[in-house]
């Protein structure tokens, strides 16, 4: 197909499948390193505590939607395809560390900061409140083009995001924009605050035990 007829999306899909082997390498490497380095913590958990490490490779359509979502109005400039590249995304390869209750988050964060000291901190915030700790950077042994990202998040919040993702994004990546509606944002904020209060109460009681 002549270059002029290819849409921005066509070009990005091609880029995605060119990058995919590297994305997988970054995901594998990042997951292995994080699992290894949090082992001392997971091995010392109290009976009421949980720690899980989950890894995912962002799908092609999710990657396109994420890039599209950076544009106000969610439209690519068709006459300037060269300004878009999937390598600008930080989370093509991502690992999420979930902990319950949230008392362990700081310990995990400290441990992983020693392993990834040069990575950029980019916490997930809502209304000034930190929802998750997030870092991105390069795993040079795996790729110098594809960045990896890891998040450290309370288990309840992380599982809620998974449910939200399955229900909203999975059927159609574009439905994800529903979550940006102001009313929906408020409902999501309400859920996050309820989880936070639940965990604080639980942790306080568990400590008394």
């Amino acid at each position: 197909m002549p270059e002029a007829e290819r849409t921005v999306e066509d070009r990005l899909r091609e880029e995605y499948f060119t990058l995919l082997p590297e994305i997988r390498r970054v995901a594998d490497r990042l997951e292995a390193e994080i699992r290894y380095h949090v082992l001392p913590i997971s091995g010392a958990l109290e009976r009421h505590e949980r720690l899980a490490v989950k890894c995912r490779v962002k799908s092609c359509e999710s990657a396109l939607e994420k890039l599209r979502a950076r544009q106000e109005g969610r439209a690519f400039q068709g006459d300037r395809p060269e300004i878009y590249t999937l390598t600008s995304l930080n989370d093509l390869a991502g690992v999420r560390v979930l902990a319950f209750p949230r008392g362990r988050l700081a310990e995990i964060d400290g441990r992983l900061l020693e392993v990834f000291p040069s990575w950029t901190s980019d916490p997930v915030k809502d209304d000034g409140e930190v929802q998750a700790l997030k870092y991105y950077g390069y795993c040079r042994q795996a790729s110098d083009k594809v960045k990896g990202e890891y998040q450290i998040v309370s288990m309840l919040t992380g599982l809620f995001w998974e449910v939200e993702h399955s229900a909203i994004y999975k059927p159609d990546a574009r439905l994800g924009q529903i979550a940006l509606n102001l009313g929906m944002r408020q409902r999501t904020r309400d859920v996050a605050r309820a989880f936070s209060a639940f965990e604080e109460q639980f942790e306080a009681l568990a400590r008394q035990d």
Partner: protein
Amino acid sequence: MTTLDTKQHILDEAGFVYSINRAVYFNRKSKKIISVEFAMDHDEEILERVTREDTGGKEWKFYFNSGEPPEGVRREIEAELA
């Protein structure tokens, strides 16, 4: 009422509808398009002023943080929301 709910209420009251595809609030009658980014980053007073502003209603008026969108983007969004 929280800030987000207040903003949503302002937009609802002014007849704006949310476009899932574009993540914008739009009003076909007044021909205004407000991005979620603009709605998030501006306070209720400005949002209220924008919804009431008289723009003539002949051409679509975009309220984006990044300013007026490029012509191609503008056409694409207008075609979808018209």
